């Protein structure tokens, strides 16, 4: 490497790493100490998480985004959640509900047009109608629902989530929460007297009973409706006995003080409604300090997860992968070694951000890297980029780097979209609750996916090169082909071993080694295709060009096994990401097939181009 090239490499690496670390150092944008609120641990979806995670995954589910555009600036998920929790009437006016289905828009009386997200108040007049339609759609088997039915059911679930959020800390539309809590404490002794005295109770005591009955009714509703459980268990209670505000109010523990969270959330709610940041912060900080004393481990974990949410390593990774890919292209166009070196630096920085994100997820979850479709996308990209880096070291020329960067970028993009289905650190269902098998089978088979994609990317690069590079360069072509061969061999090993480990897992948990289920078949198809490539090469039936075209088809097989089979049961009428993903998948497959045709065009095609 020349001195300039080394400098370019180091600069690119340093700039990339700094850019990736920036979100951690950036100051919080709001004056409401919402960052402190966001770090508070709550129980939701079976695990303790920071409120920030709940805010982000809820907003993603409702609107498909992690932030909102409001009044010319972007509002974070916590800002939206604080409104929804404490000032529902303001949250109702925020355009968060994505409604795309034209029939559903018709039902709701929403205008046709480019506007995609609507505020709650615009949907509210037809709320009962949505519920009724959703109820009838629920009776239809998931795969047989029409597009409208799927959309209305989906909207109903999102509306319900939103309504539950509003009724988690205080009843939506209730007056002053502090006054209500105080009235409850005042009324309690009198009401008890009235109950014990029966008919002989005084008039004021009887009034207390009536007042209490109204409050109890609201809190019973709160106990049912709460979207998450904000109040941690106190001394003597079991570790997972988190409770909602309503539950705690209805079941005050004997002989102890009321839960400090009740007063804290009431004070915060009042201050927030009145627009006073100072008392809000005071109540929040005091309560946060109490939680930190009571549940130190949960608070540490929640703080770490909130930092991870803020850092968004996969978003920075995605940007850096794209930059690295563009730098490789610039290197090819200009033939300057500095650009190539900068590309390697950027790729390394992207890989570092990606690795940090992956490691953080594993530490937070205490699980191997792949636990659901989202994390499989993240991991496929990580392996692909890592292999690309390694292969680039072994065989420089930019091809492996470009393939790795492209794979990293695309998979992280897919992961971003998959995240909209909810909490990506979700708990594992019973049969999957096995770190041993997740670590062996799932990881191996996912590495198999990644390397088959990388081989496909190399094949695509080979085809494009043959087409666009004017000066024939059989040496590079052969180097690329031998690289692809190595990657295919690697893929065969991992996809085979991964598939077989899956069989062994299935044998352990269901009593059959192989059940021909779509996911198993998908994995088997990848193994078969890789085996076909290797045998075709060995028999001499396919030579350099044939092998490279076949590796491109490997990408098709892998994408269908990875995502295609998930769409089988869902049917083509489903709503949400999988519906859109179907068309993207079709486009990807079509693109790869076009590349294969391009690769198979006779050499004369190229020569004619060159001579013209």
């Amino acid at each position, binding site marked *: 490497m020349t001195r300039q090239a080394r400098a370019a490499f180091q600069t690119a690496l340093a700039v990339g790493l700094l850019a990736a670390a920036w979100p951690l150092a950036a100051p919080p944008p709001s004056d409401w100490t919402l960052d402190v609120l966001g770090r508070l641990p709550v*129980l*939701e*979806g*079976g*695990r303790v998480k920071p409120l920030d995670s709940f805010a982000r995954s809820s907003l993603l589910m409702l609107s498909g985004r992690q932030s909102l555009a409001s009044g010319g600036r972007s509002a974070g998920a916590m800002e939206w959640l604080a409104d929804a929790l404490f000032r529902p009437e303001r949250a109702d006016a925020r355009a968060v509900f994505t409604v795309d289905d034209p029939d559903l828009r018709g039902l709701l009386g929403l205008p046709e047009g480019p506007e995609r997200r609507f505020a709650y108040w615009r949907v509210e007049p037809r709320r009962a109608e949505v519920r009724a339609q959703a109820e009838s759609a629920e009776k239809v088997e998931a795969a047989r629902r029409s597009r409208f039915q799927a959309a209305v059911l989906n909207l109903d679930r999102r509306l319900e989530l939103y309504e539950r959020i509003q009724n988690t800390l205080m009843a939506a539309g209730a007056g002053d929460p502090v006054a209500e809590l105080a009235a409850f404490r005042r009324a309690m002794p009198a009401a008890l007297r009235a109950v014990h005295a029966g008919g002989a109770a005084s008039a004021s005591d009887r009034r207390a009973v009536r007042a209490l009955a109204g409050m109890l009714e609201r809190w019973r509703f709160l106990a049912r409706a709460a979207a998450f*459980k904000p109040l941690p268990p106190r001394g003597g209670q079991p570790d*997972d*006995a*988190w409770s909602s505000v309503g539950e705690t109010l209805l079941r005050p523990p004997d002989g102890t003080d009321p839960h400090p969270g009740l007063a804290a959330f009431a004070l915060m709610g009042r201050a927030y409604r009145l627009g006073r940041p100072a008392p809000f912060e005071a109540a929040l900080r005091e309560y946060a300090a109490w939680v930190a004393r009571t549940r130190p481990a949960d608070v540490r974990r929640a703080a770490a997860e909130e930092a991870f949410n803020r850092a968004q390593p996969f978003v920075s990774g995605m940007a850096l992968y794209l930059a690295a890919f563009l730098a490789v292209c610039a290197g090819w166009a200009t033939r300057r070694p500095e650009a190539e070196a900068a590309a390697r630096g950027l790729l390394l920085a992207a890989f570092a951000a990606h690795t940090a994100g992956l490691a953080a997820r594993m530490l937070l979850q205490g699980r191997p890297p792949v636990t659901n479709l989202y994390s499989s996308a993240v991991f496929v990209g990580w392996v692909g980029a890592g292999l690309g880096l390694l292969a680039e070291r*072994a065989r420089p020329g930019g091809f492996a780097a470009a393939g790795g960067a492209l794979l990293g970028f695309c998979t992280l993009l897919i992961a971003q979209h998959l995240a909209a289905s909810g909490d990506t650190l*979700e*708990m594992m*269902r*019973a*049969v999957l*609750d*096995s770190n041993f*098998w997740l670590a062996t089978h799932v990881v191996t088979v996912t590495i198999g996916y990644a390397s088959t994609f990388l081989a496909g990317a190399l094949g695509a690069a080979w085809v494009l090169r043959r087409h666009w590079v004017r000066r024939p360069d059989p040496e590079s072509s052969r180097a690329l082909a*031998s690289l692809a061969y*190595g990657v295919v*061999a*690697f893929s*065969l*090993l991992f996809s*085979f*071993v991964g598939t*077989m*480990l899956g*069989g*062994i*897992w299935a*044998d*352990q*948990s*269901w*009593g*059959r*080694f*192989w*059940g*021909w*289920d*779509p996911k198993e*078949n*998908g994995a*088997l*198809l990848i193994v*078969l*295709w890789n*085996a*076909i490539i290797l*045998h*075709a090469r*060995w*028999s001499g*039936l396919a030579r350099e060009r044939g092998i490279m075209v076949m590796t491109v088809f490997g990408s098709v097989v892998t994408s269908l096994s990875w995502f295609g*089979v998930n769409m*089988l*049961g869902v049917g083509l009428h489903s709503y949400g990401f999988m519906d859109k993903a179907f068309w993207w998948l079709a486009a990807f497959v079509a693109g790869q097939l076009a590349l294969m045709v391009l690769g198979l065009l006779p050499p004369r095609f190229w020569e004619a181009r060159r001579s013209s």
Partner: protein
Amino acid sequence: MRDKNVWRRLAHALSSLELTLACLALLMVLVTACTLLQVPLGTHRAVQSTVRSPLGGLVGGVLLANLLFAQFRRLEFSRRKLGLWLAHLGLALLFVGEFGTALFQVESQMPLEIGQTKDYSEDDRRTELTATDASDPRFDVVTAIPDSRLKRGGEIDAPALPFTLSARRYHENAELGMRRPSDPPSEATAGIGPNLLVRPAPPSTSDDARDSAAILVEAKSRGGRGLGTFWLSSALGAPQGFSLDGRTWRLALRPRRYRLPFSLTLEEFRHDVYPGTDIPKNFSSRVRLRDPGRGEDRAALISMNNPLRYGGKAFYQASFGQNDRLSVLQVVRNPGWLLPYAACALIAAGILLHFGLKLRASLGARP
């Protein structure tokens, strides 16, 4: 010049790599078809009509023959090729294992309510007709006729029975309803059959639904006297039957039962969820295993990913119901269950060895 010896030519063709590629490609087509057909047909029928069809067996068999011929005719036996030898022999073992599974594996279920003891499992894809001599209040004498015999139709003469049965019609799946006056008359003459309307239905395609088979069967005494024609179905619970020579006989169609030489009692079923959700965290059944023949009497815990293996069978936690009072165990008998494990170890070691050597050579040759 073509070889005159037919056998040598056949062996040559069988060991060709072109055949390997053709078989692998065909296998891909079959597996793809199997996957896509699961949407309209359900898993079981899709598998039966593709990979486990005669064509699937043929492709698998040819591939196996091809593998062995190529291995022994073409591949030199050297240290350099040891990896390939291991991988391909492992592959052959895997094929043998899958053939074995297709032929010998028997799957059945054992639904157990808490406190219930059973010494049999049920196969809900097969049925059996039972004729029960219920005359003695202390015990029943049951004669079971498997569905393979029932489907053939004709007269069934079981030596243990004082009467003969003729299977007139057998439906793999049937819809049962009450017969209305406007419906055509029933073919049944006894039991509840005359009131029933039995319509054949296509086999269910959902993996959760089970077929309810139905059979129209006529009973005759050995003297040739008609005892009645009955509609029997696994969906019918009410007892049907007749009296003959002072003995009470009951007829029924039920899921085929496999006797076990030991019994299981469900002592406890647990269905744990993550706090505050209904996401299942774990299912487990604590059972008591009693095997008087071997003097075993012990508790065993069956949970997800942790089956109980006993007496050549494995018991898995499969399902549950009745508000967590019922646990359904999947019972699998597969004598070749260890084959895939051995095969996988061989293949993995083989591929690793082969490509490891190649990678070393390739990196070593780098300028």
